[in-house]
């Protein structure tokens, strides 16, 4: 009876396959980032990298630290839903250093929302600016308490 002998071409194929699979696994082990697969099929560290950006808008809470009196006034009137930075603009630098003042406001801030437009909801207070008044908005309206006059 003849002893079984692995045909040399098969042995070569097996070795070649192992070499290819092996080099793939080695390459994969080195090239895949450490956090890949931490939460799913993506790099887990990307979450922290995206979260690492510095916020631009300071947020109403930051304003409340010094200006709680104004925020209290604001909360009692029609502009209660407004964020400070909606009118005063990005105020992060002001929040960090009170000497840097936020942008000076003009009447265009009022008109941006309150100019009449048929697409605006009917409940929202709107004016046709040219028929309304030609002077400054603040002559008759207090921005923080819009239903009151100075």
């Amino acid at each position, binding site marked *: 009876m003849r002893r079984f002998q692995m045909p040399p071409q098969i042995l070569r194929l097996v070795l070649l396959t192992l070499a290819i699979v092996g080099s793939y*696994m*080695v390459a994969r082990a080195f090239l895949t980032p450490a956090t890949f697969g931490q939460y799913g099929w993506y790099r887990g560290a990307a979450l922290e990298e995206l*979260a*690492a950006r*510095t*916020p631009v808008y300071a947020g109403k809470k930051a304003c409340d630290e010094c200006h709680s009196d104004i925020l209290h006034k604001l909360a009692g009137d029609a502009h209660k*839903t407004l964020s400070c930075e*909606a009118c005063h603009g990005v105020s992060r630098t002001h929040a960090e250093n009170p000497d840097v003042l936020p942008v000076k406001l003009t009447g265009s801030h009022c008109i941006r929302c309150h100019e009449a437009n048929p697409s605006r909801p009917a409940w929202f207070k709107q004016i046709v600016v040219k028929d309304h008044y030609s002077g400054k908005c603040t002559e008759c309206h207090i921005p923080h308490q819009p239903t009151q006059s100075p």
Partner: protein
Amino acid sequence: MNTRFNRRGALARLGGILAGVLALPIARTARAAVQRVFVSSGAARGYDPSKHKWLMCIDVNKCIGCGLCVEACKKENGVPEGPYFRTWIERYIIPKPKPGSGQTRGETLVDCPNGGMHGFPEPPLPRDQIEHSFFVPKLCNLCEHSPCVQVCPVGATFDAPDGAVLIDPNYCIGCGFCIQACPYGCRFLSPVTKTAEKCTLCYHRITRGLKPACAEICPTQARIFGDLLNPVPDDPIQKFYEQNRVQVLKPHLGTAPRVLYAGLDKEVR
């Protein structure tokens, strides 16, 4: 010394190579496990993505089309100048039907000048011909089954455990598949980074306990941002559910968005 190439020696060498190859991924898995411990304990910032589920509710009846959200988004996220938006406002104008046309309404006009960032001009129709007109703020719909994630060939875009759909800018190859796949048109190829960009729900803000810039700045609170897993006292999200019947965009696509709208019209896509 016997230097003849024999089977025993060859098998031993082969075994050695195999063991070496297998040891590498095992070492890597061990390293990852160690890192995972570090990440969860290193959450000094106190943010664990698995403990949140964010959603956005939009009340179309409250949107006044001022464009402050679009401007805030651009400033907050450094979105490039020009027709690139992570959030934008569309204006829908539904005219009255022509008399005798037998239709309930005229053909809808939709416009979005510069994303609505600088407000909207007077409508192109006289007021008495308009039946309905309203603004619809748009952003990433935070799909539960995101088509954009499914098509990404490199694993650069993903559903984070907290529900945000994010892009890994270091991994994105800018192929643009996701831009085509998003049924809501919420992605664009940034001319600056040459990678896909989209609304991240202001990930750098929400992980610090702030609201996204658009929700922070919206003067009428048309956008309400909340966390399904951590209800706050007097939760605005809960109030929104109680006061409104909600709807999502393109429900027939089965994307299961987590951006809920109140007061939509059938014309809104």
